[in-house]
């Protein structure tokens, strides 16, 4: 009997070994795969079991966290949600994150290795630090001025510090309150469905994710190309341009809205916005030169991140001359984001030196220690400094004596360019009103701000829509706010 008892005991031992081997299989060898299974809620729970770090404008947070007492403990809250939604994006337990909430998620949720006291600390402990803070480059007064200026009309504003590339204002209207998407449950899904179904597209970030035909504001790019390519050597000398102008290789004539464009000089063409002169100059520069300058300003760049991705602004690189002529006045296939056009104004204001835009100034730990600082963005040079100086003079002329009078600020050097872009089949859509500008305080050696404004006001009377009428006052308000600081 002893022998059989021993054998039965061996069977029990075998069962124990099977259990231990199986436990090791699950807990050691398959653990990572099981942890990473999307249906495993543990990662999500861990993610929301501490307050998320904040996004700051100036010294003040525009976000917060509240404890819900639910399984996912902490929910995002927003101060002035609609005002800053194009900057912060949303952080939703149901729909994920966008914009800064997305781009800096590792910092905000506390998993970023820069927050850890030692390298690989988070990886080793499988834990996370308290959420870090993200300080933006946005200035509250400018953001508010831009938001108030648009006053709910569809449109966008982008403002840059020309010397650093810091984004000072980024507004898109109509906006939405990201807090309504924070949690879980039917209130959130309903809000999501309503926002997505809304005809006014409130969740579209028009400042960086929507492109518009830039219209006449693009003439600054064409002028830069013409001066750099020496197609124009004296900005005040008459050009050899008839009015109306027949598009090369076609019998289509291009008219002017303005008067006095026949044989007008480049400076006059910018001041009163002559289509004919600029179209002609674009063709003289040629496709290659035009494309090179446009790309120097940032067109056709799919890799621009601020740190969220910015939609690509387009300038075709394969066109016939008549198409090139239209493209040179910001029509045909030429499209730009408001941020892109702010970059154009910024490069002119900064003496031909374009600083890459950025939205995050620095990242700090929960205790306020800076762990990452963003300096001036890397620069590129879309035009020569002398060209930039000439363009500055021409843009100032636009505000002082031309179409941009609405942007003038007493005692301040302001340069601008209006644009009224037609779009739609046979130009049936309501045109977009554009204004790009920059301002330099009298006692300052460098420009304070560059602004681009676009207003796509579907409700307005068509005749009222013009860059000078609708968009320039908004730009002025933003510049005034910038100069007050």
């Amino acid at each position, binding site marked *: *009997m*002893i*022998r*059989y*008892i*021993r*054998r*039965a*005991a061996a*069977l*029990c*031992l075998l*069962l*124990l070994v*099977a*259990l*231990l081997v*199986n*436990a*090791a299989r*699950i*807990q*050691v060898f*398959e*653990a*990572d*795969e*099981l*942890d990473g*299974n*999307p*249906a*495993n*809620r*543990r990662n999500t*729970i861990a993610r929301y079991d501490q307050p998320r770090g904040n996004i700051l404008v100036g010294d003040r947070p525009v976000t917060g966290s509240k404890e819900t007492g639910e399984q996912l403990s902490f929910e995002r809250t927003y101060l002035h949600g609609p005002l800053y939604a194009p900057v912060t994006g949303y952080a939703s337990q149901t729909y994920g994150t966008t914009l800064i909430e997305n781009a800096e998620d590792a910092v905000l949720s506390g998993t970023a290795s820069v927050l850890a006291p030692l390298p690989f600390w988070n990886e080793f402990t*499988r834990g996370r630090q308290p959420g870090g803070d993200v300080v933006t480059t946005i200035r509250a007064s400018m953001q508010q001025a831009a938001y108030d200026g648009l006053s709910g009309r569809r449109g966008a504003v982008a403002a840059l510090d020309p010397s650093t590339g810091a984004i000072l204002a980024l507004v898109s209207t109509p906006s939405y309150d990201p807090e309504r998407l924070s949690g879980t449950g039917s209130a959130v899904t309903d809000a999501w469905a309503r926002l997505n179904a809304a005809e006014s597209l409130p969740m579209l970030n028009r400042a960086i994710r929507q492109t518009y035909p830039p219209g006449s504001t693009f003439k600054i790019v064409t002028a830069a190309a013409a001066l750099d390519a020496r197609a124009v050597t004296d900005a005040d000398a008459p050009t050899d341009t008839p009015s109306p102008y027949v598009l090369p290789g076609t019998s289509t004539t291009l008219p002017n809205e303005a008067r006095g464009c026949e044989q007008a000089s480049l400076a006059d063409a910018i001041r009163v916005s002559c289509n004919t002169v600029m179209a002609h100059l674009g063709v003289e520069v040629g496709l290659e030169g035009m494309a090179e300058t446009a790309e120097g300003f940032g067109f056709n760049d799919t890799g621009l991140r601020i740190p969220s991705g910015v939609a690509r602004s387009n300038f075709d690189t394969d066109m016939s001359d008549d198409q090139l002529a239209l493209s040179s006045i910001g029509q045909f296939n030429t499209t730009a984001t408001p941020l892109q056009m702010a970059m154009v104004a910024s490069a002119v204001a900064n003496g031909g030196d374009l600083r890459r835009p950025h939205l995050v100034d620095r990242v700090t730990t929960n205790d306020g220690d800076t762990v990452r600082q963003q300096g001036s963005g890397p620069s590129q040079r879309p035009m020569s400094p002398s060209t930039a100086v000439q363009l500055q003079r021409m843009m100032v002329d636009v505000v002082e004596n031309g179409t941009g009078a609405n942007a003038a600020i007493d005692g301040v050097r302001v340069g601008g360019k209006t644009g009224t872009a037609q779009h739609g089949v046979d130009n049936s859509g309501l045109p977009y009103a554009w204004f790009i500008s920059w301002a330099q305080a009298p006692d300052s050696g460098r420009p304070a701000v560059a602004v681009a404004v676009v207003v796509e006001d579907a409700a307005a009377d068509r005749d009222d829509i013009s860059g000078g009428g609708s968009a320039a006052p908004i730009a002025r308000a933003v510049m005034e706010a910038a100069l007050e600081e």
Partner: protein
Amino acid sequence: MTATTADAPPPELRLPKRRGVELALLVGGVLISVLGYAAVGLAHDGVVPPDVAGYGAGLGTLALLAHVAVRFRAPYADPLLLPIAVLLNGLGLVLIYRLDLETPRDQAAPTQLVWSTLGVALFAAVVVLLRDHRVLQRYAYLSVASALALLIVPIFFPAVNGAKIWIRIGGLSFQPGEFAKILLAVFFAAYLAANRNALAYTGRTFWKLQLPSGRVLGPIVAIWLLSVGVLVLERDLGTSLLFFGLFVIMLYVATGRTGWIAVGLLLAGVGAFVVGSFEPHVHSRVQDWLDPFASIDAGQGPGQLAQSLFAFAAGGMLGTGLGAGHSILIGFAAKSDFILATAGEELGLSGLTAVFLLYALLVARGYRAGLALRDPFGRLLAIGLASILALQVFVIAGGVMGLIPLTGMAMPFLAQGGSSVVTNWIIVALLIRLSDVARRPHPEQVETGVIAAAVEEDR
């Protein structure tokens, strides 16, 4: 060994009783449980639970009570059995208390403490009242009659979660199958002890297999088939598997016929396949076992088994710490069938291994008592009771870890469940009694001064 004199007994004759060791281990077991209880509170609320002293005192009193019963009535008993049972029960209370924190409306720990108290009381009662285990042999047929009655009664009660294994009276519910397994083990041991020679040496030879005569084998096979049949009817696959394994092991130990193991495995295989294929409740569990993540792929979210595997994986080597896991995600059976997943998540592979080793020690000590005993009934009973524990741990642990299809069973001492805790305390009481007899010196050995190992009687 040593010369004996009437007035000065040599020290060798004072056989070690090891009651001091037992007491020290009990203190350790209670301390570990109290520390675990405090750790849960610290992890969950940042403070030690206010009733930690009460919990410690309660568990300590129970342990002391059991110890006193053993010290006076079974002084030679194995000193490991009681501390392991106290530690497992204490750990189970900690885990249930920990899971209670997640479900404020369903507090199971206080009830479990009441049942544990009852279990310890019955433990003491068995140790005190049952002076000699051989008494049980006389009640073999009463045992089997009660076992069958207990198994059949739940048929007349409504099913709970797909299995008709509960009796509900008032607010109380218990599983008669739990008690039935002790009674059945007693009957198997008694019957096999009485008839094992007939089983082993009579009957016809069929091919290479020597079949016992139907007259001897018939009654026990009938009883066994009846109990398994009833359980299948009640859809209690775990317990039927347990009875099956218990029967095969005891038959093998009693007769030494390897052929029975082969026949048993073959029958088990065929039975499992048939039931697994055609019984919908079981079939779904087999499907779950084959692909625990099917419901995720189907977009219905993870099932219980998948959640259990997630919990084990989250534990890793060292675990998340008591109170710091998320095993509540497993759902309604977290405190009963799936409590091992919480142990796996919060104590990790290291803690889980420790828990398995505790069970292994308990089983090994049972087997050791079986080896040391001289009477075949005692031997078979010890082996049977130890095997019940071993099989039960394997079936439930293998189930929640995806090693074998899941069968609803309770992890001995750990899981929430009154009848289970009480039954396991009785099993330990019987093992205490058996080990006491096994280790107690025989009068003639004391007389001659020979401490002999258990002499093998038959071979």
